[in-house]
């Protein structure tokens, strides 16, 4: 049987897009209608999205004959893959409540914005000379996995703010009522999501650091300098600085909660600029995913 890889690639991406989108609806139903079973439907759909992303990556790798994370679209599919992997790691390990509700739209946005890219950023193309190195297999995949961990940390921070907001509105509703157990539950959820954010940043931070190191080694091999302050390098350092500040701030106890989660959101914004925003800023050595 002859497998039509390009077609499989398209189908994988379309599947990932639909399933993550539908997963969001399932998680939403689970929350609004209080149907626990819908949560499992959502998780199943997220699982299908993971399979879709994996199929897309394998197919693209076979079509293009190089590591399937070499242009913007490919890197976004890789990001989706890692986001879903870390989503399931989080679900299995920490069992957070309503986490899918926050994670699924982030996954959906990743793949939906990837599919809306202009055709020039999507197609399988041969590598330009500077990218023809085994480092691309190492550096890019590590960096993107760190982005995914930070995305999930951002989701956990959103979870924190979500429960905070609910705790606030709940307090208004039940003002004067003896809802002590409810308040205790919300507090437990707040502490949990705060710590989940921290744990996920503890995962992303070493990955980002190793990503920067491998990038420096590649740069030293290809450009003759391990650090040249090009916009992408600088923004990755800025992201690193923000998360380093987060980790240091987290050591002092008064930085848990609002301030810490706020800093995690700031780190995510820096990460987004590193990943996407830099392409709009100015040209540099990392001008592969360029948006003109």
């Amino acid at each position, binding site marked *: 049987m002859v497998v039509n890889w390009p077609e499989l690639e398209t189908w994988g991406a379309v599947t990932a897009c639909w399933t993550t989108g539908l997963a969001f609806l399932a998680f939403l139903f689970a929350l609004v209608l209080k149907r626990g079973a819908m949560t499992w439907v959502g998780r199943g759909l997220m699982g299908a999205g993971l399979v879709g992303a994996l199929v897309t990556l394998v197919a693209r790798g076979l079509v293009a004959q190089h590591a399937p994370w070499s242009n913007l679209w490919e890197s976004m599919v890789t990001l989706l893959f890692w986001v879903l992997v870390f989503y399931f790691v989080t679900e299995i390990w920490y069992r957070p409540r309503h986490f899918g509700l926050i994670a699924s739209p982030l996954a959906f946005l990743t793949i939906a914005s990837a599919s809306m890219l202009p055709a020039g950023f999507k197609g399988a193309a041969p590598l330009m*000379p500077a990218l023809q190195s085994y480092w691309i297999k190492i550096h890019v995949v590590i960096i993107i996995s760190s982005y995914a961990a930070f995305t999930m940390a951002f989701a956990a921070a959103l979870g924190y703010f979500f429960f905070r907001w609910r705790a606030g509105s709940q307090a208004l509703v039940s003002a004067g009522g003896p809802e002590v157990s409810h308040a205790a539950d919300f507090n437990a959820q707040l502490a949990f999501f705060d710590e989940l954010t*921290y744990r996920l940043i503890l995962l992303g931070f070493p990955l980002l650091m190793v990503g920067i*190191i491998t990038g420096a080694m590649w740069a030293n091999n290809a450009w*003759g*300098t391990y650090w040249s302050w090009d*916009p992408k390098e600088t*923004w990755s350092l800025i992201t690193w600085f923000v998360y*380093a500040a987060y980790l*240091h701030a987290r050591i002092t106890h008064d930085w848990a909660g609002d301030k810490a989660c706020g800093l995690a959101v700031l780190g995510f914004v820096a990460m987004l600029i590193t990943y996407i925003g830099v392409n709009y800023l100015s040209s540099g050595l990392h001008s592969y995913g360029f948006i003109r």
Partner: protein
Amino acid sequence: MRRTMQAIVHSPVLARVRYTRRRRVVTVTAMMASNFRRRAIVFLGSLKLAIALLLLIAAASIIGTLIPQDQGPSVLETASFHPRLIQFLLAIKAYDVYHAAWFVALLTALFVNLAVCTWLRFPPTWRRYGLQWVARPKSTAEQDLLPLLGAPNAVRLDILRKRGFRVSEYAPQQYFVEKNKFVRLGPTLIHISLFAIMAGAIWGGLSGVNASIPIQVGESVRAEDIVRTARIRGPLSQPFAPFELKLDAFRIDFRPTGQVKQYYSRVMLTAPDAQTQTRQVWVNEPLIYRGVYFYQAFWGVAALSLTRNGQTERLSMTPAKTGAYMSSPFLVGGQEFLIFLRSLEEPALLVSTKNFEAVGQLVPGIETSLGSDRFGIDSYHLYSGFQVKHDPGIPLVYFGCGLLVMGLLMVPFRHRELWITQDGDHWVLMGRSHKGRVILKREMAQLAQVWNDHCIRGDGGGLNGRELAGT
């Protein structure tokens, strides 16, 4: 704060401060001075300063990503900003932020902060690492406490041992249980490695050489010329050992689609005290000779051979805007022309210098006639550009990176300290972890459950395999 104070009490510098204070006739000013010194050292190594510097450097770095960094102050002078803003940006050297004195000062401050912090905190960390047990904390405010239904015995303590905990009975009926103590050394390792990386970068800046050298095919360049014309030459840099680098050939491989596949330079390196070596250099594959790296970095058209009535002459080419080239002018039939080359894949244009209008197209190998003259382009002479670099700081930087990765591998692990002790007449499990109280609580609840299950079933029942493995 408590933790900082602990660190200070144990630090060698403050021990010395206290010591000198005791020996001297303590005057009020001396006390104030030493107090100030202590406060200054605490501040320099403080977490607050670290966070402030990290965020400040992050914010400052943004400037350099918004304003082009390699074009000098002219970029700002011609910008359409408010004049005051331009003045300000010029004053802070926004066109070269990363080498501006104030930015380097911020980096230096971070360097000092890192050093002082490590110096203050390492001794207590190391001492703690050496301890086999730690007595249970008196205050239970920061600990989580869970009731245990039965007293410790060999089988029950095995529940903990099987899960990787180390158990020590440090006093009668007092057990200290811990796991992953090594994690405590992680931050120190990371800080020392960052120190090594920064030191390597500084050493490289002081003693490194970085040059951009174009070589035409068939020509060569000598070591001393590379060093002489280097773009960056550190004040402590040493001259290169003598060698001569000759470019034998330069080739660009294209894909069927017309995209560049790879640039290849075949070079020959001769040195008085080494064997002559011929090597192919391409992007991502530098030539390395005695710590000097030669990278394929750029290329261009240096000249072209023009045939005119059977004779060949050489015209030099100068780069025009956006990658195009212009030849030096030449006379044909009393009229002056030049050749304009946009890219090697396109025909060159024959341009009259009178009105700069294109009068014809030229393709290498095909002659055209103008008046009584027959002429054409014979071939283009390319040059290959090398980045030549010698950076003695790199081994230190890479050593730092290796340490860093080792330190980073520890980051996701957690150090847990548990105590099994008596609270009144009940047995309790107490615990603390520097990373994540919620997760620890959950883990402790699981441990307590297995423990209590065992107690309920009685000592004779023992534990089954599934319980040991945990869930």
